[in-house]
């Protein structure tokens, strides 16, 4: 090949790099290794982690130990999906395109909204994108955020806001829910998470009614697996709904890759960020799928694009479509009901322990609840770790005594009883 090019050596391929910037030494990295050696290294690293099949997981706070059925990654893991690029050549990409169309359809069904897209990065960045979408009216710039919104979502919003030119304003909860956003003609949107960061069910209709009365857009952060039993965002008045979609067939993976879900009303579709798949026909009239409304996107519209997103989380959306197909309508109801019932049972058992109470005793919750403990929550969590439990996530509340406990359909009555017993012993 060098001969064909009339070159003497591989070094000649790099002759245009000025000598002054060439690296005149090897990279300070180890020598390459064989596959068995890298496998040994990786498995040794993996063994130094205690995963959620070894520990009994009651940790949530935005990432949940739901069951991932075998069929999901048997299909989503097929190399035709895994190793393909963004479907720029639709004739060679009908598999990804149709699956994304089906994903969009199922997200619309779940949320009761008109349109979705081919995914965003995760729940937090989806919220930041939703705010950009909602801030489309000149003069309406302010962003009101319920104190019930996940703190990591809020931090992400603050970071994105530094570029977009807003500072999210928090309105406090009352006994773990509700609150009063101070609306005015300069407010772009009101953000409510339901169930909120404490797992509590919010009076969403009232909050969104107030937002709309004030002329602001309503953004709901939702839990996809709650929507078999909880009313969909569209029915609650949300103009835009976003979620962390990890629970839809994606593994916990220490925080990613996850799935940013977004859905909105049809009249906002031309401002929606990210890729959108549409159904059309080919020259012979056969049904086919393409990326559509690309004039919103960075590769066409450049600095006027609705977002900079290019690479997204398509494979996670494919997994979500397969997972929702596996669940079906009754499966979605059953998972939601199981999470809710088991969480309620766990809350009852745990609050039987002397000194342990619900932080918001009068507030209804879905699959997660905040426990007030008689000792620092991190200490209790660590003590329970020694007994084989990931007992929850200590919340950054000033008192340091609050533990957020999540109960998914994977947890059994036996495991919940065992946690209650162990916590009782730890606190005795």
């Amino acid at each position, binding site marked *: 090949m060098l001969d064909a090019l009339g070159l003497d050596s591989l070094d000649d391929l790099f002759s245009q790099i000025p000598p002054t910037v060439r690296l005149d030494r090897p990279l300070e990295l180890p020598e390459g290794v064989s596959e068995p050696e890298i496998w040994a290294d990786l498995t040794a690293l993996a063994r130094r982690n205690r*995963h959620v099949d070894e520990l009994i997981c009651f940790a949530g706070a935005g990432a949940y130990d739901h069951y991932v059925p075998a069929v999901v990654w048997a299909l989503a893991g097929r190399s035709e999906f895994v190793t393909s690029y963004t479907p720029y050549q639709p004739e060679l990409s009908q598999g990804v395109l149709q699956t994304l169309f089906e994903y969009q359809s199922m997200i619309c069904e779940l949320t009761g909204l008109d349109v979705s897209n081919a995914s965003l990065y995760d729940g937090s*960045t989806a919220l930041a994108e939703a705010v950009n979408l909602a801030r489309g009216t000149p003069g309406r710039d302010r962003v009101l955020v319920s104190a019930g919104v996940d703190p990591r979502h809020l931090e992400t919003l603050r970071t994105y806001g530094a570029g977009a030119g807003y500072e999210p304003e928090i309105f406090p909860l009352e006994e773990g829910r509700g609150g009063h956003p101070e609306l005015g003609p300069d407010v772009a949107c009101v953000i409510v998470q339901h169930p909120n960061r404490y797992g509590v069910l919010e009076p969403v209709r009232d909050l969104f009614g107030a937002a709309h009365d004030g002329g602001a857009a309503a953004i709901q952060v939702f839990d996809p697996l709650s929507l078999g039993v909880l009313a969909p965002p569209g029915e609650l008045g949300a103009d835009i709904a976003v979620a962390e979609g990890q629970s839809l067939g994606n593994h916990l993976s220490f925080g990613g890759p996850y799935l940013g879900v977004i859905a909105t009303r049809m009249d906002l579709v031309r401002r929606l960020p990210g890729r959108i798949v549409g159904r059309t026909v080919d020259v012979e009239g056969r049904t086919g799928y393409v990326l*559509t409304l690309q004039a919103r996107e960075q590769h066409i519209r450049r600095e006027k694009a609705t977002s900079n997103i290019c690479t997204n989380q398509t494979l996670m959306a494919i997994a979500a479509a397969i997972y929702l197909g596996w669940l079906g309508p009754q499966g979605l109801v059953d998972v939601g009901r199981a999470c809710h019932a088991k969480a309620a049972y766990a809350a009852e058992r745990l609050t039987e322990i002397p000194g342990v109470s619900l932080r918001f005793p009068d507030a209804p919750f879905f699959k997660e609840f905040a426990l007030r403990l008689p000792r620092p929550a991190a200490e209790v969590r660590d003590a329970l770790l020694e007994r084989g439990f990931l007992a929850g996530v200590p919340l950054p509340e000033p008192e340091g005594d609050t533990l957020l406990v999540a109960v998914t359909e994977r947890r059994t009555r036996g495991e919940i009883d065992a946690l209650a017993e162990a916590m009782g012993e730890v606190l005795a």
Partner: protein
Amino acid sequence: MTEPRAPEGGVPEHVGAPVRRQGPPGAGTLMDLSRPGRRASSLPPLDVPDREVPAEHARRRPPALPEVAERDLVKHYTRLAQMNYGVDTGFYPLGSCTMKYNPKISEAAAALPGFSRLHPLQPEETVQGVLELLWRLERALCEITGMARATLQPPAGACGELTGLLIMRRHHTERGNPRRRVAIPDSAHGTNPASVRMAGYEALHVPSDARGLVDASALEKLIDEDVAGLMLTNPNTLGLFEEEIERITRIVHDAGGLVYYDGANLNAILGRCRPGDMGFDIVHINTHKTFATPHGGGGPGAGPVAVTEALEPYLPVPLVARDEATGTFRLEMDRPRSIGRMHGFHGNIGVLVRAYAYVFLHGRDGLREVSERAVLNARYLAHLLREAFPPAFPDGPPMHEFVATAAPLKQRTGVRALDIAKRVIDLGFHPSTVYFPLIVEEALMVEPTETETKESLDAFAAAMLQAAREAETDPDLLHEAPVTTPVRRLDEARAARHLELRW
């Protein structure tokens, strides 16, 4: 349809598209398979008392998801997968996308429960292995790019760009003025100007010169103290190395600006030169390009951002820190000058595990060889195609990718770059990128990557040259292509006009 001839050297004949229609005619969506009462899922019976959610919160009827058996699900998505082309299917020379082969060891590593089954908020003592992996990967990426520290949080290149620009903004803000504009070359990827806008800046466009390089003299006139920085890839979007890179970075630095390296083209220079040594202050890396993490039909990727020591305080939280005394690792949250958080948790960890496997499997010599072979393959393929598809900027030798043009062919025959791409599909290949970069007429942007053999380059070139010959003799064959794919050319105008975005 003309039967393609095998070129000299015994390359196999191609007799149609690499993916074909699958299953019965008119097979529809998963919803079309739905029948009342069918179900794939099974769950254990409820072992605690059932509870109703309060009536005002309850859903009245379940969402109309498809009702199918597991068998239906498997048949349906297997059929769809078979209608999709991936790197595992064959050659994938998409320029600017670095579609190299994705080693299976990386997949196996990411699937280990010790990585895939970790909750992101587990106590640090239960995740020492993954924290060490991230720490080692960060060190390796800094060495490869010549930078001091890196965040692994951004889940994609574009998010990395925004991260870098917000760091730039914070740097200038701490000095009293965030400044107003960020310079980008006219050949830049669309994410650059879009990210600039999201970071609250205006894009300032820098023209390319006749050689396809940044016009340094024009840049000198454009850069002033209102410019926060410059974003650049090197080699640039045309596959050409910016030979005046030191002058370019000096011009920006002299005006108090920062220089951002878009790592889209890092695959060309591993072990040969480093952005840090060229004067760049901020670098993003696309692991799904350079470090062979698969692209998943559009994602996930990962877009780590590495910076100089001076910019390290602004990196997003958390960073992985190592306690020298105990050798243990922790997530460092308390970084008061940080720009904040770019992702809900720690980034696309499963992708980063794959990147780690790739980097340490190859090691220092292996990574250098990656770039050697990537550049050799691109130069060789450009050479094979040069008569029919001349390089857009012939003065500079291309590096890991090249931009050719079908403009002369179009002038002679009316056949466009798009028609060539579609015909190449019928000849058994995924085509190159077309119509990018925007500054080149009838652009064909080709990036073969280092993982392809000479035989596969020869075969692709034969298909391209055959298409060029057919353009002269039978242009309709190209206008009508592809004819052997699951669907033929699709009506995109109709898709945008009659929006059908769900079933």
